[in-house]
């Protein structure tokens, strides 16, 4: 079964500043708890979880004008996956960050988006403290 799960957070920082962190695929370990390493090679990224599990990913979109980042996990457990991170400029030096995970199996969508929601809150804390 396929599912789509979305998480969002408003960050009191300009969209460009937020995108500089969240849109850089190599900086994922800085704001995503549970990911200890991210190695980027072109459109390939390999993340390593805190359990030491490497997970290869394919970067599908990294659009700094639209401030959109999309990738998919390439692991046997996942039949289909697309995660999309959008940073929307709200025009008042704040932005809305939306993270959507579509996946089959459905549980994986919740696992990814659940972790991402927690990560967005972490990113908000990090950015708003600076």
């Amino acid at each position, binding site marked *: 079964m396929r599912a789509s799960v979305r998480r969002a957070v408003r960050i009191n920082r300009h969209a460009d500043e937020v995108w500089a962190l969240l849109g850089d695929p190599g900086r994922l370990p800085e704001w995503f708890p549970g990911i200890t390493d991210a190695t980027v090679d072109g459109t390939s990224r390999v993340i390593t979880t805190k*359990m030491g599990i490497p997970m290869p990913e394919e970067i599908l979109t990294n659009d700094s004008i639209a401030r959109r980042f999309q990738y998919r996990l390439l692991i046997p457990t996942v039949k289909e996956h697309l995660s999309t991170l959008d940073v929307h400029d709200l025009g008042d030096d704040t932005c809305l960050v939306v993270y959507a995970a579509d996946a089959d199996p459905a549980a994986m969508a*919740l696992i990814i988006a*659940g972790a991402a929601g927690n990560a967005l809150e972490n990113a908000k804390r990090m950015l708003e403290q600076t």
Partner: protein
Amino acid sequence: MGRKILFITTDQQRHDTLGCYGGQLSRTPVLDGLAATGIRYERATPQSVVCMPARSTMLTGQYPVTHGVWMNGVPLPVDSPSIAQTLHDAGYRTALVGKPHFEPFLDPFMRFVENSLGDSPTPPGGTHRGFEHLEFATHTVVGQLHYARWMAANHPQYISGFYPVLDRELEVNHAGGGDTGAPQVQVNNVPKELYHTDWVADRTIAWLDSLDADEDWFVWVSFPDPHHPWDPPQSEVGRIDWRDVPLPAAYPESAAERQRILDDKPRHWTMWYDGTLVSNYEAPTRWVPATLTADQIREVNARNAVEVELIDEAIGRIMATIGARGWDDDVDVVMTTDHGELGGDFGLLFKGPYHVDGLMRLPLIWRPAPSAGVAAAVVTRPVGTIDLAATFCGIAGVPVPAFVDGDRLPTSDTDLDGTPERVLTEWDSELFGVGVHLRTITRDGWVCTAYKPGYVHDGTEGELYSLTDDPLQHTNRWDDPAAASIKADLLDDLWASQPAVRTPRLDVQAPV
């Protein structure tokens, strides 16, 4: 030196699995003996019928909407109030051995503190949620908890004998086994002494043996069984021949009669039964309850009963240690479970948004320390597991913290005269767009459940059962004009008594 507290929980245990509640299958002499010399609660009701919210209520003394763990998969914030912390602050040594489940288990990123403590029984910083000693186990041997690590390091040859709780698609597994092909049943050749029930007792005994004789202590012993999977050590399965197991009283053998009873309830009952709706993650997604056979119910309940016997024997070993340490007179023993199990009632297994006795009527035994001189009793008025936290404070002689919503448990039916006997239970779940929201009151021999608007409910549905006239909850009187007056009274009380709601609502972060 004060009274010490042995707090024992099981997982997903029906009240009628114990001899002291009329159970016929399991031999449970230890718990029956504690009940005979203590207080047995005839109607103990959880505030949620799934693990994480129910366990968080025990720890915080708060309702699920207040502590915020409104469904499985919502982690209890690590800085949430904890009655263990209250006791620790009062000088108690504190330990939690067995299943915690205040945070999700399904955690590939290892984000949740609970899953990262398996390196040591001593948490970083000295305590975690008020416990200074932690040794965790759950139903499976996969993962990073202490029991799983111990099995992997010392007995890896037995790991494959345990039932895989999740399937390859991370859904709750529906694969069947045993003699009947019943879901979540598997032959497990792990030796009894390596099974998690005995491990929990062993680790509890080791911790108790490490304490000085004059120390006060609070230990939460949390057995993962008899929650599915039903894969007890195969050496013990022969204790009960499933072919001899009677069918539950609430299981009509006639399929037509089952259908009639289910059709009398709000529509998600029948929709789950016939496989058209899965509203929650706590039962196998691909399993259709209508396919459950009478023999499968017998086999599941036989294995469940074996697991209950093993727990009783493990408790007996802990009690023997307490006796050997000379603590008999000063130890309060409180035993309960987080929620029940449908166990074949109505042709259903597992659990979900169904506020009936299979899930709502729990075993609860409090054997006060003999030195306290509390008379043995059977309490018939309804009580909640939310009352445990205040009860522990009473035992320890410490003030009940302001964060606690529950009251202390009564010691008899005439104790706490004048206090309302209402007990509230909640269900909220939102799984991939399917939302179900129930609010229930148990009072005056009735159980009344109102359904808030959701995926298949428009907010007008409900259930009303007379526990006296209809102990099996086969006749829903929600629309019965003869019950309109009591229904209105119960609903008024239900809505007027709703607890404080934590805001903002916490996110679901994992399936379970």
